[in-house]
């Protein structure tokens, strides 16, 4: 056996007692605040914190375990990450180690913090802006090609991480990805279509989805990226509030022909099975999903609507679906005692003119409608009731699947992402916050359950 011929002290300094440089993160992210005191632990054993897998897809569970901790002792698990805008998000939970000095977040119960009870993914969906961050933030990933990096620590005792000095016992870094290895992201700017196409690896042909978001506008790619990681080609389509789209701001300047072109783009794609295309949309995108599926002359295999109206909530400019400025008619906006706006009543079926409504009775393919029962952004319950009734009268109940989640709010997203009960809507003429509803734990449960059911629904309708 060879001896190690190094200067003993030099190396012992390096590996015995670590001096702690700041974490080196991807690219341009700022380093973490070094508010934690790093000193040799008072515990004899070297505590170990593990996460499995350390690199997960956003909808995959991560199993977090702590070992070699003092037995039957209070421990805090603390997660922190920076959003792309540089805001600090954090969460924490209090656990007690068992008699072997271990914790396992998949089976143990949190007794306090950002969540309580047995919540394997609570550290992720429980993330919230750290105190002192800007108001009304929403966590959105613009660049889906890079992961979120989340640093998780074990701290001694049941503490709030912000409260003075804390002792960090162990740490692990996890990455959460929207895209799977080998998945391809392709910007689409052709034929007037503004979107991003995600393709799974391989030649295909793949079943496909057309993916629409709401009046937040722009181009949100994260759900399409995840759908492609599950084997579906998916096109995120912009229709409002995007620099590459025509016309005045705040109006929808594209009509039925635009959505038809997007659908045909998928049908004609050499790596997509033209007979297996579905449409999904959330909020205003849910209305568009119905319109595309029923009214414009294309034949999707299935539709998934999340918390959206049955008709256009903005005044229609013409027959093709273009609309006026959403904010031009505020009569159904309601304000709470703190001046925050809820758009819930705007989409109440009785507040939508008949000519704006989609004729749901003409549905010819399976439709899944997902309701957050605490949705303060749309009248989802009433809309679901109306759809159910309309389809029953038309003898088409067999096409309708309704998922309803108590305590869930407006933005029912893929799982393990935090919910924002309210967010900043606009800053002019003055700052306006909008409320969307949803309580953390039930909303997280809704996201997890609905995503599973969405994938099963797609499996049944696009693969068999």
């Amino acid at each position: 056996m060879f001896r190690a011929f190094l200067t003993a002290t030099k190396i012992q300094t390096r590996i015995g007692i670590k001096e702690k440089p700041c974490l080196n993160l991807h690219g341009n992210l700022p380093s973490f605040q070094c508010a934690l005191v790093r000193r040799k632990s008072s515990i004899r054993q070297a505590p170990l914190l593990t996460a499995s897998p350390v690199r997960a897809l956003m909808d995959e569970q991560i199993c977090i375990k702590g070992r070699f901790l003092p037995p039957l002792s209070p421990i805090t698990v603390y997660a922190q990450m920076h959003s792309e805008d540089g805001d600090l998000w954090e969460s924490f939970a209090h656990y007690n180690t068992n008699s072997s000095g271990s914790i396992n977040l998949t089976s143990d119960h949190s007794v306090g913090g950002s969540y309580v009870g047995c919540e394997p993914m609570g550290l992720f969906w429980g993330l919230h802006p750290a105190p002192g961050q800007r108001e009304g933030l929403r966590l959105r990933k613009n660049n889906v090609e890079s992961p979120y990096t989340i640093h998780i620590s074990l701290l001694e005792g049941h503490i709030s991480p912000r409260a003075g000095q804390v002792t960090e016992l162990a740490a692990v870094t996890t990455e959460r990805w929207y895209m799977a290895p080998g998945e391809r992201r392709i910007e689409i700017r052709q034929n007037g279509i503004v979107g991003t196409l995600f393709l799974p690896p391989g030649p295909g042909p793949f079943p496909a989805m057309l993916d629409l978001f709401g009046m937040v506008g722009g181009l949100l790619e994260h759900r399409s990226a995840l759908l492609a990681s599950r084997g579906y080609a998916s096109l995120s389509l912009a229709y409002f509030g995007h620099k590459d789209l025509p016309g005045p701001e705040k109006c929808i300047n594209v009509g039925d022909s635009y959505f038809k072109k997007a659908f045909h783009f998928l049908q004609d794609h050499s790596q997509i099975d033209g007979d297996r295309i579905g449409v999904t949309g959330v909020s205003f995108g849910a209305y568009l999903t119905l319109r595309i599926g029923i009214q414009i002359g294309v034949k999707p295999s299935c539709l998934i609507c999340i918390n959206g109206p049955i008709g256009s909530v903005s005044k229609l400019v013409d027959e093709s679906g273009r609309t006026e400025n959403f904010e031009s008619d505020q009569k159904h906006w309601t304000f709470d005692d703190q001046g925050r706006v809820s758009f819930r009543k705007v989409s109440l079926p009785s507040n939508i003119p008949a000519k704006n409504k989609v004729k749901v009775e003409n549905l010819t393919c399976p439709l899944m409608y997902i309701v957050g029962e605490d949705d303060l952004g749309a009248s989802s319950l009433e809309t679901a009731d109306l759809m159910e009734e309309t389809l029953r009268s038309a003898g088409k109940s067999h096409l309708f699947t309704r998922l309803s989640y108590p305590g869930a709010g407006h933005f029912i997203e893929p799982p393990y992402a935090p919910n924002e009960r309210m967010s900043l809507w606009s800053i002019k003429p003055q700052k306006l916050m909008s409320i969307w509803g949803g309580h953390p734990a039930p909303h997280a449960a809704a996201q997890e359950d609905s995503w599973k059911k969405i994938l099963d629904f797609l499996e049944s309708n696009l693969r068999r």
Partner: protein
Amino acid sequence: MDRNQTCVKLSVEPSRGLVDEKILVLVQNGFPGSQLTIHALHQCEDGHHWEAFAHYNADATGTVNVSQDRSSGGTYSGVEPMGLLWSLRPVPGSKPGLRMRRKDVWVPMVVRVSVYRGHQIEGFPDQTPLAIVVLERWYIAPGVQRIPVTEDRLTATLFLPPGPGPSPGIIDLWGGGGQLVEYRAALLASRGFAALALDFLTPKVTIETGKAVGNDYFELSCAVSISGSHVQPVDGSIAEILNYFDTNRAKTRFNENNEVIWKDLLLPIPTDPSLKVDMGRIQCPLMLIVGEDDQNWPACESAADIKDMMERAGNNHLLTLLSYPHAGHLIEPPYLPHTRTSLFKSLGKGEKYMVLWGGQMLEHSRAQEDSWRKLLVFLREHLYGGSTSAVPSHL
């Protein structure tokens, strides 16, 4: 368009795992009872392609679960959850003597896993698969820091796990091939150890100083030797040790394929105490990992001698011996392909030899999996509190 092609679903989890993590490979929505081939393809850093494949029959629900179902043929057979990785071999037509060794730990090993109709044995590039999934196998976890060390004219790299420390430390020494090999240290750091990959055969050190720099000892908490031997001139410099091997060159043997067997260079195990480390004096727990079909180094014979020395000295309670029948010399982290022979460039004159390392694929792969698991347990057991250094060495 073939409707069946849209239906078949292939999933591999985790899609981005560490190299020593298990994967779950699942095929669903296949035709019940149909014959399917699952194929893995990897292009390594030097550009060569490696592949593995196995034949399955979908069950009554059209499912194949690689962790539970039997492969009826291919590069492995039977129930082998990780067979698609450890049975990877150079594709037909590749040059002989290839070995897979990761140089850049920041780039994962990328494996393309495909499902084909029927029981195929060749011609995969010309066929259209039913489904494809791409897998990444990482040697390094997120948050691990890589710190090049250049003090004292060393060639070393330190890998630190995330967290406050102090982390138990490991010095990882590689063998006679020279060059700094980082991937095992990166993997150890991903498992919570501070690991220093050290190239003690750096030409710079030996040429400029002629002997080791600062022969200070560490106080070791434990030591792991993989495929090693205690036979060497005690108190010798690296140059003297290499010279000792050289003087026995005549004992080099060649098998019927003209592959080099070097284990005899140190055999028989000498009785002269100046020619072998006195294992009776060792004071820390020691784990020996040996392949019984090691054709490159007399690890097995040395282990027997070490055991004997320690029994006579009364310190054999410190010894853990893991001895694996039909395993060869290159006992690597788990699920990496077994290398029975490869082209090896000797340090001294830079000549190339086709070296026989030994081992049979199946037993060698089992040895890699078992020994890694036991090595991690051993290191954790002995590396907390007090002094925190350990030396796994690989000859």
